[in-house]
Structures are given as structure tokens and as C-alpha cells.
């Protein structure tokens, strides 16, 4: 048995950069803003994550992927802790993440996290042709975090990552 060299918290953050969301594989868990904290205590690495949506089935897969990625780098033991509060918001998605989403064909969240009474219609830009002339087809898209839109100019249907 070989002794594991000391792992820095910074190294763990860079490994997490490589762990992607299973539903939106261009986004890392850091782009999504779901990693709240990384702690190291007596060689136990603890990763604190928060689910995006209450019913998001991806959270279990994400936990497992984080564990696997750290194990592959010889980091063990690992503890993944899920916290609900403060609740995740699309405001925590990085700028880089929003750019990656757009390049992938998903319109990134527009504006700020939804406030209590605030659910008016928002203008969403088509990720294909950049037109603002788009319409909401359905508030619920292929996953619960997305709404379905269509571009009135290029006619392309597209997903929009909802404000949350």
C-alpha cells in the first residue's frame, strides 16, 4: 500500500472541472454552480453539492461521477454531501457555462433568478441564428430545467435553460 501524497483542495477543484452534467454534457459541475464547497479533513475529501431541481434525476448520477473522477486520481475516501439551502439558482451558473450552453444549442437562462411574483414573458434569443423573434412552445422541455422554444425566423426549435 502506497501512501497517497497530500492532495490540495485546489487539485480537487480542477478535477471537478472535468466532471460534466449527464443531461447537458457540455457543462461541468462547476459551470452549473452546484458545487458549494470542497473540504479536506484527515484525508477525507468532502464535496458539498446542491441539486438544481428538486426532482432532478441527474443528481445521483452527478454524485457518482464526482466520486469516480476523484477515485481515478487516487483520492479516497470521498464524501459527497447534498445540501438544499441556500437553494440553487441559475444565477450561480458561470458566464463561461452560459456561453457553452449557447454553443451547444441551448439558450442560456435570461435575467435573474425567478422572484416571487415574477414570471412574465421573457425574450429569449435563438442560439442558432441569434434572432430575438422567438416564441415559447412549452414551459417544460426535454428535462425539467428547460423550456421548449421555436425561432420564428430560422424556424429551428430549441431548448431554453429556464431561470430558476
Amino acid at each position, binding site marked *: 500500500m502506497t501512501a497517497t501524497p497530500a492532495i490540495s483542495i485546489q487539485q480537487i477543484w480542477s478535477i471537478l472541472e472535468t466532471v460534466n452534467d449527464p443531461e447537458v454534457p457540455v457543462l461541468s459541475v462547476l459551470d452549473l454552480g452546484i458545487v458549494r464547497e470542497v473540504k479536506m479533513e484527515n484525508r477525507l475529501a468532502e464535496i458539498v453539492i446542491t441539486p438544481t431541481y428538486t*426532482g432532478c434525476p441527474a443528481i445521483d448520477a452527478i454524485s457518482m461521477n464526482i466520486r469516480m473522477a476523484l477515485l481515478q486520481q487516487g483520492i479516497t475516501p470521498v464524501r459527497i454531501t447534498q445540501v438544499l439551502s441556500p437553494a440553487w439558482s441559475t444565477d450561480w451558473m458561470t458566464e463561461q457555462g452560459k456561453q457553452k450552453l449557447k454553443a451547444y444549442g441551448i439558450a442560456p437562462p435570461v435575467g435573474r433568478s425567478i422572484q416571487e411574483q415574477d414570471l412574465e414573458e421573457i425574450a429569449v434569443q435563438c442560439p442558432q441564428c441569434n434572432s430575438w423573434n422567438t416564441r415559447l412552445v412549452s*414551459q417544460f422541455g426535454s428535462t425539467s430545467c428547460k423550456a421548449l422554444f421555436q425561432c420564428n425566423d430560422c424556424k429551428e426549435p430549441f431548448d431554453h435553460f429556464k431561470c430558476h
Partner: protein
Amino acid sequence: MDTALINYTLHLADNALILGHRNSEWCGHGPILEQDIAVSNIALDYIGQARNFYQYAATLINQLPADRQHQLLSFDAAEVTEDTLAYLRDVPAFKNLLITELPNGDWAQTTLRLFLFSTWQYYCYQQLQYSQDTQLAAIAAKALKEVTYHVKWSGEWVIRLGDGTEESKRRLLLAIEELADFTGEFFAMSEYEKALLPANIAVNLDSVKTAWTNKVTGVLEEATVALPPGKWFQSGGKQGIHTEHLGYILAEMQFLQRAYPNATW
């Protein structure tokens, strides 16, 4: 440990699980693909809420001595988990509102029920996010964002149907007739809720009623219909006295775990 908090948490969980199950029955049967996906997504949100509440209830129940646990569940479990609570409790242990267990009916009844319920849930969670119980508060704050979308989506359908064709309006009116008597239970405080009020843990349903009535009246007006006046209402769900429909839901939902205990896949 006071059982009021456990019962209240189970009430919140059961509402979400049972209505989530009802919505999931639409999966593959929605009128058009987009709406099929919408109603299934809402089901997923509800099941997620239910899981959070059940996990919390399980932690609380595991702290009870064995005899109190047995009293609460009417069976013995080595360790109570979210699955124990969803799959092994029988009808009288469920504390969901009766409106959540009613059959889906047609699209009008489904969307109207969702609108009436999610509006109630919206105003409840708005209060619950400030509960002195930090875990209930965290779950409510998280779910509130999703419920906002449920209210909007279902409210738009109610307006579309009521202010639509003769046939869609006829169906919405039938749905109102079917569901109206089940809305009074939203605001009837159970003993366990009353017990949790002084410590600011449970939601005060009196103030929810005002907000709910304003919102529902406004949307129904836009839909050119109205809730009938009436003081009498169906109740019992919060105390475990249910309609005949809940047994059928549980029979389907719990069959696998009861026939093949602890089966996983």
C-alpha cells in the same frame, strides 16, 4: 420527539407523492407531445419534493423509540427510509389532501386540479420557507421555484379551456363541479398543524386562504367561470380517512415492494 412534526412532514410528502403519481399516469397519454412532457415533468418535480420530505420524516422517525415507531407506522422496520414510507404504509397512514388522490378525469379536470392545488402549495411554501424548522424551510424554498412554473402552466390551461370552445368550457365547468367540494380541505387545520403553529413551524392556513382565493378567483374570471359558493366540504385526508381511490393508487404503486420486498434494479 413530538409526533406532530412527523405527521406534518408526512402530510406534505404524501400530497406531493400522490399527486405526482396521478400526474405520472399521463405519461405517454398526453393530448400532444409537449403537454405530455410538461405533465410528466411536473410529476417528476412532485416526486422530488416527496423524496425530500420523506427523507426528513425518516430521520425523525428513526429517532423515536420502537414502540412509538410501531404506533406511527403500524409495522416494524429495522431502519425507516424514504422507501419504507412511500411503499409500506397503508391507506390510513397516508395524510394527503383528498383532492390529490382523485382520478385524473379528462384534461380539464387534470389541469384545474393542478391549478387549484399548486396555487395552494405556492402560498403554503411561501410561508414555509420561513418556518422555524430549517429543513422544512429549505425544502420549501427549493420547491417554490418549481411550483411557480406549475401555477403558471396550469393557470394558462384553465383560461384556455374556460375561454375556449363550447366543448372546452363545458368540460371545465364539469371539472369545477367535480373538484369544488374538495378545496375546503386546503384550509382546515389538523391537530398536528395547530400543535406546530405556536412555534412557527407549520403554515397558518388562514392567511393562505385569502391569497389563494384572490389568485383563483382572478384566473377563473379570466376563464369566464367561477367557483360555486358553498361552505360544506369533503375532508378526512389529513387524518388518514380517504376516498376509495387511494387504495387503488397504493395497490399499483406498492405492488412491487410488497410482492418482492427490498427488490432493486
